């Protein structure tokens, strides 16, 4: 696979789980450069398991993972972030006892002298954090925490951002704000792979989508087509 043609992220034939019984079987997803891709599906379908496997928290039993055309299968998370992968978990995604600035600095842990300019750059995308740099992150509201988690993940200027339910537990107005941020991050050139229960909102800002069910690929296609699919609307959008 040549680097110029390679997708930003390719996970192919992934089988993984927590016990002997796999949660996902032979699942494949890809994210092209500049794309936002959303995975939807019932609870227990294996969406979070897939993300954890891609990010090295779980070892795949079969399958391979490529970032920008380079194989990264089996690499631990701390090496994957150096390869351009970033992950924002659904919960526990900030250091509550540290200040907002310290959280951002931690996000840029591989940087040497460029931390401050990178913080300035990230704040350009999330200006609401600027007046709160000295505040303890644990005192931020849910929406502000999620914003900080996104900002922290961007400190190393990743080529692919993995998001686990970025809108969960946020007020409706903050949900709009988070998806606007996701779109803005993507506009800056970062590819995004997210899983979301708020499928309608997530697909509305996505280029493509996958449906996972029972640990297997069920459907994939352009996000607009999935939003209009009768099956998807009935089974996964609750319409």
């Amino acid at each position: 696979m040549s680097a110029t043609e390679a997708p930003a992220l390719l996970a192919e034939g992934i089988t993984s789980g927590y016990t002997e019984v796999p949660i996902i079987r032979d699942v494949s997803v890809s994210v092209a450069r500049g794309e936002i891709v959303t995975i939807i599906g019932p609870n227990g379908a294996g969406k979070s398991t897939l993300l954890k496997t891609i990010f090295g928290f779980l070892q795949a039993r079969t399958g391979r993972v490529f970032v920008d055309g380079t194989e990264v299968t089996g690499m631990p998370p701390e090496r994957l972030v150096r390869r351009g992968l970033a992950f924002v978990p659904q919960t526990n995604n900030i250091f509550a006892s540290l200040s907002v600035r310290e959280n951002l600095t931690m996000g840029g842990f591989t940087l040497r002298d460029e931390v401050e300019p990178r913080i300035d750059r990230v704040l350009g995308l999330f200006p609401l954090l600027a007046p709160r740099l000295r505040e303890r992150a644990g005192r931020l509201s849910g929406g502000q925490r999620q914003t900080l988690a996104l900002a922290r993940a961007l400190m190393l200027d990743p080529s692919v951002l993995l998001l686990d339910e970025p809108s969960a537990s946020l007020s409706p107005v903050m949900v709009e704000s988070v998806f606007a941020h996701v779109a803005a991050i993507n506009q800056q050139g970062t590819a995004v792979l997210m899983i979301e229960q708020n499928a309608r909102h997530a697909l509305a800002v996505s280029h493509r989508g996958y449906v996972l069910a029972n640990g297997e690929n069920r459907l994939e296609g352009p996000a607009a087509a999935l939003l209009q699919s009768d099956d998807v609307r009935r089974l996964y959008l609750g319409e």
Partner: protein
Amino acid sequence: MSPPPRPERAPLGAETIETEVRGDRVGPAAIAALAVRSVTKTFGGNRAVDDCTLAVRRGTITGLIGPNGAGKTTLLNIVAGALRADQGEILLDGEPVASRRPDELLGRGLARTFQVPRPISSMTVLENLVLAGQRQAGERLWNTWYRPDRVGLQENAIVDRALGILAYVNLDHLRDASASTLSGGQKKLLEFARSLMADPKIVLLDEPAAGVNRTLMRQLAALIEEQCRERGVTFLVVEHDMDLVARLCNPVIVMSQGRPIFEGTFDEVRRDEEVLSAYLGGQFR
């Protein structure tokens, strides 16, 4: 986002509670299942709950919505006995309970779920439920030595009840799975099931729909409605998913900056300009 300006005085609950305290109203609906009176909780210099007064009428599914950081979860923690209020009163069925521990409140019929589910991950799904059985004779060494038959009979009854509840929430196929292997949505269902084990009179649900797909959310909503309708369980539901709030909750209380600012039906709430701009956003206009 700036929260809406505070009203001169919290507009809801106060009158109801005053009449209850004076005993002017009679009948089963007169006393609120839960009344919160002038409750304040400060963390450092931050007033998370600020002179909060509200009432939850018996037999209702009352929604509690508001911006992140409005104090909703803190209030739930205070009501459930997990946090002590700096000042104010909590009345459960008219009885002051502000200094009670969570397990004492559970014994009085108040159960709660958590925003982030906390099952005991080293136990199976069934064991998590069995653990929630109340007043188990086997908890006393005396009984296990001298009344083993009674302990065994009760344990069997609790397991039967747990299996019934697991079937009720469609988790019976996972009864022997480790709770750690459940997905986020399945853990939410397990939380709900655990709250039912205590045969509660009132349940505090903290974001039951967060991380739950639409189909499962509808199942959960139907279970909540059924518990309310068939068994008279009162619910106080903190939730950001407006589809669920619109379907389930009446009344809906809007909280901002640590106190209620509005109470009404969901349609009334969504027509309020302040609530729209501070909380609901453009999609509801």
